[in-house]
């Protein structure tokens, strides 16, 4: 039954063996939990639909559970262990003071259905961050219900639809650039719109002419991230927004890259009408191995009546929940990922206006510096200066050595760094998308550049080595085809094998 009893062989610390799944530690009758004795008289209650037996959960001691989870922690990389230049993800260092805030019992133990009279502090948190976020983005009101960026996109698109319907229109298409993140087209079509894609030009920016010809009366809006996914600032943004506005379309800002322009430029000033922010990127919420995040959506004055509700409003001395006049309705079961929002507020208040601007400055400085240090093996496909991240191409390297972007990324692991994003955006061949973030020191940026360059060297001298990387991680590359072909998604399925 138990095949790694007590041993730490599973952790790289000693050995690097495998860690069994928790069911392997299970012994009938063992348990970690304990509860007070029932202190009400035992009632004779027979429920319909009762279970025949308790669920087949593992039965483990607290001791084994703790060791298991800690050993698994030793098998995971994280920002708190080293640099994580994963493009588009803004894997910056998350100050621990924000953890403190998110664990504050005055907030974490609050039930979401508590009446506003007893949650004024929580409502104030939302108003306070709303004001900061609106000032930073140049918008006028915001909703904090969307729990992630993609949810923010859906929300924004529904606002767009409601806006047009309020005018008696029903345009059917939304334009996105070909460099857009996958959530953009997915959201557009799930919101019931046609995706109309415009190409990038040779600057790596939206082709203004192509955009102009894509715009017609059926266009509900345009969705863009700026800096775009190539890390370049869309210099024609004002003209583009004008084009859209001319057909009464709305311009949507995908805030995944807001980090680059904090305090420097504002989507509102560029002509955007709807802006989502990824608090889990720009505002230092750690990503939690995949979430939780928060994707608040801010809008201009004239779109505020369409926001999801309820939203907090100050009425006299008190704050209460109100439904915006023409609200699209609810998009989250409660008030969004509130503790994530609280974290972000803590971060914003710690940094202040000056500090937030420094985030942009130094994230761009680090990216620009890193880009400048890379050897010629990594082509930079577009000449414009990068913002907080850049995309390099390993196409030439591949042609010369057979070593692909994927191999470079995996080889970086052996140098102690997380891999960059690969093969995105789709417009660049053998793309390596690198975002050092502002919290890395110049020394780290230099070490990263050295690693990239040494890998390129190795690609020329010992390509097979690089193609087999990583060599020093807990495991080597996984057989993803096997995983999809013979799915083993639970330990039950594993047992059936």
């Amino acid at each position, binding site marked *: 039954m138990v095949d790694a009893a007590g041993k730490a062989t599973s952790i790289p610390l000693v050995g690097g063996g495998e860690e069994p799944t928790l069911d392997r530690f299970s012994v009938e009758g063992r348990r970690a939990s304990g509860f007070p004795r029932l202190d009400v008289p035992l009632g004779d209650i027979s429920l319909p639909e009762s279970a025949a037996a308790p669920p087949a959960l593992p039965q483990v001691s607290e001791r084994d559970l703790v060791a298991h989870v800690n050993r*698994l922690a030793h098998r995971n990389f994280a920002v708190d262990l080293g640099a994580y230049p994963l493009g588009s993800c803004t894997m910056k260092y998350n100050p621990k003071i924000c953890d403190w805030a998110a664990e504050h019992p*005055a907030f974490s133990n609050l*039930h979401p259905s508590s009446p506003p009279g007893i949650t004024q502090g929580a409502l104030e948190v939302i108003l*306070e961050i709303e004001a900061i976020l609106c000032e930073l983005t140049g918008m006028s009101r915001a909703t904090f219900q969307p729990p992630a960026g993609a949810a923010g996109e859906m929300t924004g698109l529904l606002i767009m639809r409601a806006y047009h319907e309020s005018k008696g229109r029903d345009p059917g298409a939304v334009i996105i650039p070909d460099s857009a993140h*996958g959530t953009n087209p997915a959201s557009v079509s799930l919101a019931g719109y046609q995706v109309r894609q415009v190409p990038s030009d040779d600057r790596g920016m939206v082709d203004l002419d192509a955009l102009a010809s894509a715009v017609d009366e059926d266009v509900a809006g345009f969705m863009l991230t700026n800096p775009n996914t190539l890390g370049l600032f869309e210099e024609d943004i004002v003209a583009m927004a004008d084009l859209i506005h001319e057909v009464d379309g709305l311009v949507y800002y995908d805030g995944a890259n807001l980090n680059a322009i904090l305090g420097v430029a504002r989507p509102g000033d560029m002509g955007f009408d709807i802006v989502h922010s990824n608090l889990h990127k720009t505002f230092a919420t750690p990503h939690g191995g995949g979430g939780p995040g928060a994707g608040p959506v801010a809008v201009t004055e004239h779109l505020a009546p369409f926001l999801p509700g309820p939203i907090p409003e100050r009425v006299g001395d008190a704050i209460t929940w109100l439904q915006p006049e023409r609200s699209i309705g609810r998009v989250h079961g409660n008030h969004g990922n509130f503790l994530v929002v609280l974290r972000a507020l803590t971060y914003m208040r710690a940094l202040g206006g000056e500090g937030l601007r420094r985030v942009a400055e130094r994230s761009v400085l680090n990216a620009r510096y890193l880009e400048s240090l890379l050897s010629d093996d990594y082509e930079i496909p577009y000449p414009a200066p990068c913002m907080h991240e850049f995309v390099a191409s390993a196409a030439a390297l591949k042609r010369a050595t057979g070593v692909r972007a994927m191999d470079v990324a995996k080889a970086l692991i052996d140098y102690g760094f997380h891999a960059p994003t690969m093969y995105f955006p789709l417009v660049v061949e053998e793309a390596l998308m690198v975002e050092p973030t502002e919290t890395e020191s110049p020394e780290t940026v230099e070490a990263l550049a050295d690693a990239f360059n040494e890998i390129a060297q190795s690609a020329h001298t010992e390509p097979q080595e690089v193609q087999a990387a990583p060599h020093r991680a807990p*495991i080597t590359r996984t057989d993803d085809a096997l995983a999809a072909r013979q799915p083993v998604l639970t330990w039950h399925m594993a047992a059936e094998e």
Partner: protein
Amino acid sequence: MDFTPHTSGDTQRMLAHLGLAEISDLFAHLPDEVRPAAPLDLPEALSEMEVMSHIDALGKRNRSGLLTFAGGGIYDHYLPPVVRTLTMRPEFVTSYTPYQSELSQGVLQLLFEYQSMVASLTGLPVSNSSLYDGPSSGLEAVNLAVAHKKRSAVWISRGVHPHTRQIIATFAHARGIEVVDHPLVGGRTVWAPEGVSQPAAIVMSQPNYLGVIEDYDAARAVATEQGALAIAEVDAMTLGILRTPGDAGFDIAFAEGQPYGNPMSFGGPVLGMFAVSKPLMRKIPGRLVGRTTDTEGRTAYTLTFRAREQDIRREKASSNICTNQSLNAIAASIHLAWLGPAGLNEVGHQSVQKAHYLAKRLEQLRGVKMATPGAPYAREFAILTPADPHHVVDQMAERGYLAGIPLSDDYPEFAGGLLVAVTEKRTVDELDGYATALEEVLADG
């Protein structure tokens, strides 16, 4: 505070290397129009001590520490410190979605274990690794059904969480989904199929929002009759004592997973649990972890069925979800492991016993009635009082109790309705205290 490491020397050195004079030169290529006309009106930087004072002061403006009898998906169950301690390990907290499996075996394996436990709990073979929350999972379930069945109607019981129904309503229009509500009679759903379009799915809740235990088989029979998928919204913490939706033959189950491992958090971050039957395996929304091997034949975990996802399928994806609630799922699986079958059973059992004790006490109060007399319930129930339930909640808060959730907003037919949830955490003294306080509040009018 400043969390960037750059000294002024660093900045100078780097700028010089780039041939730039000042930091603002980094942005020289930005058109003038996009720069803010006036300096932004943002607060000054604060030191940690000042931030903490500020957050503390905001916290003091909440009345915290009330004894919680509110539920509706978010419950005040006992959360052992060990769950928090393990979940908050920086390796889990500060890593991204585990795209690079070589560096993510910890998170991947924990999510695989989460999927396994959710499968056990729901009686369904396939679980994803979390969605945003319970209610929005309902929307994903409906989407899945609509796409799978290529029908646009869905039948939804009014016993389904009002927020779930609201979210579905928000999106239904844009997606061309027709929602048909089915009424509650005596607290239980009456499936009244006459004259409405054939549904892609029927959706019920077990126990339903009023706390009432519904009839799984009846709902399943209706679904079968209509050729529809059967979808159940289930209550996480009674999964230890009630029959599983899988056992009842349901195709999809979803739940608000907060009670496993997550504090109430003012409602977020929590997590959506989502499980499906084998035939729907490749249509499930959200991230999925699968077991495989590495090039040296070792067991390894990886994200799988990636082809369904937005980054690959783009506008053809059936869901746009990207960032999900991994850390909350990790917390859930650690808590479930701590509980084990016996613990989960005990939480359910004690909650039920205490709920029934309280309900009996309340029924004896002057003017208080059960909203659905005689209907079977587990650990949550609705009462009717002669007073406005919002008033009751406010007055009870003065006495230290978060009394429940007013029903009247969502169910106008229960004007004096209050939904009361009881967890194993509540002691008999607290239950008695609640009854006494309610008696006072009602006496004061």
